[in-house]
């Protein structure tokens, strides 16, 4: 597979993307170009089509085929308690503020298969918020939400997740949270009680409630500046004063118009607190 494009392929890709936007409402032209190209070429290589032009009409006619593109372009792999120091900071410096609310609402935007939403549920349960929070875990892709809802993950990941969990300041044994069988781990049903999985597209959908924490990590890196700005404005509109925005460890509000309205919790933590007033 050639990971790079010639002029003609660039033109073909452009017309494919605008057709897909018209037919399905997903506008990938708002995605960061360099990694989008790599992802689409990877999809093309596995699709059996010889070119984007050859794939164009079949894609426009067959929603199931398009699902594959959507998955290839938008799905991000994740881990439970990825970047343990982030979860440690959440536990120590953010959750104590959340605990002062009678009911806590959290928006996890771009949750993919749900590993981090479940991690958050474990953390909140351990810090005494059980039954007092709701995590709205949203993703653009319906299929991946189904996986998230099932809460079944390959057992092979559990060793890393256990290490992550311990480094994040976990108070229990990680194995308490899942049942192993058939090379998979089934997460405890009680973790699902506080999570609502729903489809949401950051490019077109709006806010749906006032949140005390918005969690969106390694999603904005795939967006162009314009879409990134839109997503950040949505988060800002959703957050109550004093609420928290948790971005990926390499994503920053520096250079964003919102930067002045937020204060970073600890330097380079990429957890930002919205100022009052």
């Amino acid at each position: 597979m050639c990971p790079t494009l010639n002029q003609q392929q660039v033109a073909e890709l452009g017309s494919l993307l605008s057709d897909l936007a018209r037919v399905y409402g997903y506008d990938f032209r708002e995605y960061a170009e360099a990694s989008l190209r790599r992802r689409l070429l990877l999809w093309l290589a596995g699709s059996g089509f010889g070119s984007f032009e050859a794939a164009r009409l079949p894609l426009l006619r067959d929603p199931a085929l398009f699902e594959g593109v959507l998955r290839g372009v938008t799905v991000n792999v994740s881990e439970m308690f990825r970047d343990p120091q982030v979860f440690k900071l959440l536990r120590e410096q953010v959750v104590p503020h959340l605990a002062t609310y009678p009911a806590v609402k959290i928006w996890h935007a771009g949750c993919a298969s749900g590993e981090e939403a479940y991690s958050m549920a474990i953390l909140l349960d351990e810090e005494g918020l059980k039954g007092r929070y709701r995590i709205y875990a949203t993703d653009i892709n319906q299929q991946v939400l189904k996986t998230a809802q099932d809460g079944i993950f390959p057992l092979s990941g559990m060793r890393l997740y256990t290490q992550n969990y311990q480094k994040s300041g976990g108070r229990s044994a990680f194995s308490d949270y899942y049942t192993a069988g058939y090379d998979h781990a089934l997460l405890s049903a009680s973790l699902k009680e506080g999570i609502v999985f729903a489809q949401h597209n950051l490019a077109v959908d709006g806010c749906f409630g006032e949140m005390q924490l918005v969690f969106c990590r390694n999603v904005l890196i795939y967006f162009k500046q314009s879409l990134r700005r839109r997503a950040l404005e949505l988060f800002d509109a959703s957050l109550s004063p004093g609420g928290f925005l948790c971005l990926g460890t390499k994503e920053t509000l520096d250079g964003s118009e919102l930067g002045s309205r937020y204060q970073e919790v600890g330097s380079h933590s990429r957890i930002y607190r919205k100022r009052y007033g």
Partner: protein
Amino acid sequence: MGSFRAITLGVSTGGIAVLRALLGALPADFPLPVLAVQHLSPLSGGDLAQLLDETCAIRVKEADDGELPQGGTVYLAPANYHLLLEADGRLALSMDPPVNLSRPSVDVLFESAADALGEALIGVVLSGVGSDGSRGLRYLKERGGTAVVQDPADAIAPGMPLSALQLVTPDYQLPLAQMPQLFINLSDT
């Protein structure tokens, strides 16, 4: 300001020593941004950038997503992320699957930067095991960029330079010690 807009480089085995020698010899007012991929273990942190920043005159930092690269600054790909240059001139990161078993991957950096900058780009393959960077360097050259390969005899691990030389006839093949002066000369043309 000369006709070049950025230097991209890739290194794996012996990376810390190589980067110290190379970046340590560049002046603080070196006019070009340097984008660098060093193969790291997924568990190592951002300490390398800090170490290099303290020992080099030129500024060294881990790349943040969306940054506009500045002259006199080295941007290291963070562990576990690919580093790319977008057509709008901004740095981008991705967590896409490893390429050549590597994330960050030198090929990913070279190919994206070649798309963005064409002939205004310099690509450098340094010491390392494996073949990451070879295809990217070939593409960069096809797009009019300038290819530099460390002399394999001079490299701690000659694999990456040898692999690159199989695909590319570089514009410059030279030992590490001569690279800083080359970069200074090129940045002036």
